[in-house]
């Protein structure tokens, strides 16, 4: 489904990704772990099409197409979904209006009939149960005044409504208490199918107690230095990232 080859990207002239290779197949959950500043969020942003990031080398093939040629909205319509680390507040735009406009834009692109208000509301109510979200949040402006947990639930609600094939969760666990973490993870697990794939970007292992990955990759200084199964995450939890840094560049550690 997704094949990343030798991906290099920079932000404001500074190279962040220095040759990432990653293959994700349908039905799989991949976790990308790494210390702060290793390039995790940059990778997520590049996949979603954020213009801030400039790709300087490499390619990303998604469902047989060059993903990097597509605009952010085309990527979304093709089934790429990024759950933001810091969801954006949009004053003056109600959550319902936003969700309905987004869903209908995606449906239109996919050649499906747009949903009317009644059908849309029925769908949203069903999906809201997944993330145990309060109904009143639908009528509030997008993310405005939402607690950290509510914002993250809202991300997963959007994901549930838009039904992507590739979900990318960028530090979805940050700022969540244990109950919210369980609810959010539960939502992600229920959305899992043999047709779609999920990439979980995280600093800590704890989210992976709830979302069990098939593969764990360690990103250090813009490169994946180690891949393994879920046990790799426990190893990182126990030993920290220092040993992984050594894998990347032992000389630097000694200096």
């Amino acid at each position: 489904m997704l094949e990343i080859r030798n991906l290099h990207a920079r932000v404001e002239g500074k190279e962040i990704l220095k040759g990432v290779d990653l293959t994700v197949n349908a039905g799989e959950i991949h976790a990308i772990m790494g210390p702060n500043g290793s390039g995790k969020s940059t990778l997520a942003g590049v996949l979603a099409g954020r213009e801030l990031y400039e790709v300087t080398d490499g390619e990303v093939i998604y469902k047989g197409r060059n993903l990097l040629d597509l605009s952010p909205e085309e990527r979304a319509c093709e089934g790429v979904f990024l759950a933001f680390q810091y969801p954006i507040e949009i004053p003056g735009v109600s959550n319902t209006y936003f969700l309905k406009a987004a869903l209908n834009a995606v449906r239109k692109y996919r050649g499906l009939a747009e949903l009317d208000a009644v059908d849309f509301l029925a769908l949203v109510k069903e999906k809201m149960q997944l993330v145990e979200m309060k109904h009143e949040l639908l009528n509030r402006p997008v993310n405005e005044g939402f607690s950290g947990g509510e914002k993250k639930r809202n991300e997963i609600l959007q994901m549930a409504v838009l039904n992507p094939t590739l979900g990318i969760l960028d530090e979805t666990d940050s700022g969540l208490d244990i109950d919210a973490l369980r609810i959010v993870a539960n939502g992600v697990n229920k959305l899992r199918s043999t047709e779609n794939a999920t990439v979980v970007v995280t600093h800590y292992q704890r989210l992976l107690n709830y979302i069990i990955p098939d593969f764990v990759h360690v990103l250090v200084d813009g490169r994946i230095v180690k891949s393994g199964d879920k046990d790799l995450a426990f190893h990182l939890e126990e030993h920290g990232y220092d040993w992984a840094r050594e894998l990347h560049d032992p000389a630097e550690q000694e200096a």
Partner: protein
Amino acid sequence: MGMSTNKQDKALQTFRTNFEEFERGLNGAGNSAMHKRRRAAMERLSERGFPTMQDEEWRYTNLGGLLETQFERPTAELLPDTTNIDPVSFLGMEETVRLTFIDGVFCAELSDRALTSDALRVQDFASVLENDPDLILSLAGGIDDGDEHPFSLLNDAFTEQGAVIHVAKNATDLPPVHLLFLTSGGGQPLLISPRILIKAEANSELDIIEQYAGLGDGRSLTNIVVEIDVADNAHVHHVKLQEENEGAWHISAGYARIARSASYANHYFGFGSRLVRNHLHTRMDGVGAECILNGLFMPMDSQHMDHHTVIDHAQPHCNSHELYKGLLFDDSRGVFSGKIIVRPDAQKTDAKQANNNLLLSGNALVDTKPQLEIWADDVKCTHGATIGRLDEDALFYLRSRGLPKAKANSILSYAFASELVGRVRLGALRAHLDAAIHNRLERTGNA
């Protein structure tokens, strides 16, 4: 001096010639008290002259095209056929007391005063002038700032049409008053000089909608003066819609006096005209008065929209809230100049002013100029002005959910503008405004 002064002088000469012609047509009425006022205004205007961009109050607005245009006073034979005009269609509100004017001339057959009563009298200016000229003289000319705004003098000199609205003491739950000004804009450019006089007696409450719309695309100058007197504990909710065609110049001056515990709210929505200059001057003349000024302007193409407001806190314990927002497209230009005066007696004043502008084009330009003149010491005054572009993070967020770029622009622009729509209390009017905003976004390619 030099060229620009010539332009100002020539325009003055043209208006003087027009005025002499106007006087000749008055016959016996030429000696009335009303006409003496007109003549005095014309004299003062001749001394003052039209402003140049060297005038501090006019430095952002070039009147060149206006001053070079030869305007004529509208006469009955210039009026268009009214049979195909449905006055309700301009606002979509049925239950109103409506006066319709075409090129500034009252049009009885398109007006509807069925809902008037002793509590709410809505009359056209010309008939009041004929039957009760003292009423007009008592209501007009309450605030004089001809030096800052010479077009008020021009209106004074030429005015013979308009509306006189009187709300009786304790009268509330009244139908909204709708003043509809249609400009035909065909043939010779027209000078349209209506006067609106509003008096809300003690404890009364009034909703008034002042709407300007175009029937054609010709040139005209609408030069209007509105005077509002809000008595003790009365409340006036005033909405102005500016939807004239792009051949029109629109210059207006509004003066409101707000008495003890009274409130005046002015909600302005600007979409139309090639050039707009609004001057709005409110004075809180009684303890505990409140003044709310909200404005939204959305110029496109090469439209120029200039807004000058003055909020005068003359008494203690008065509140004023002002929010003007500009959303500018294409090569358009916007101006906001907001002055707040807090006089020595006006202790415990609470004044808030904000002007926020979004530029949706690299060629659009806005000038914003807050001015505070504070002479009292125990006051709370805040002001802020911003000029920016649509938030990149928010745009990316919307696009990352599948919304095309133009749609994302439209959603964020609408959200910015709709805050002011939400402050209008008549639901039918909010629907009209929503449609107008969406229409503007579509026309500018943001949909």
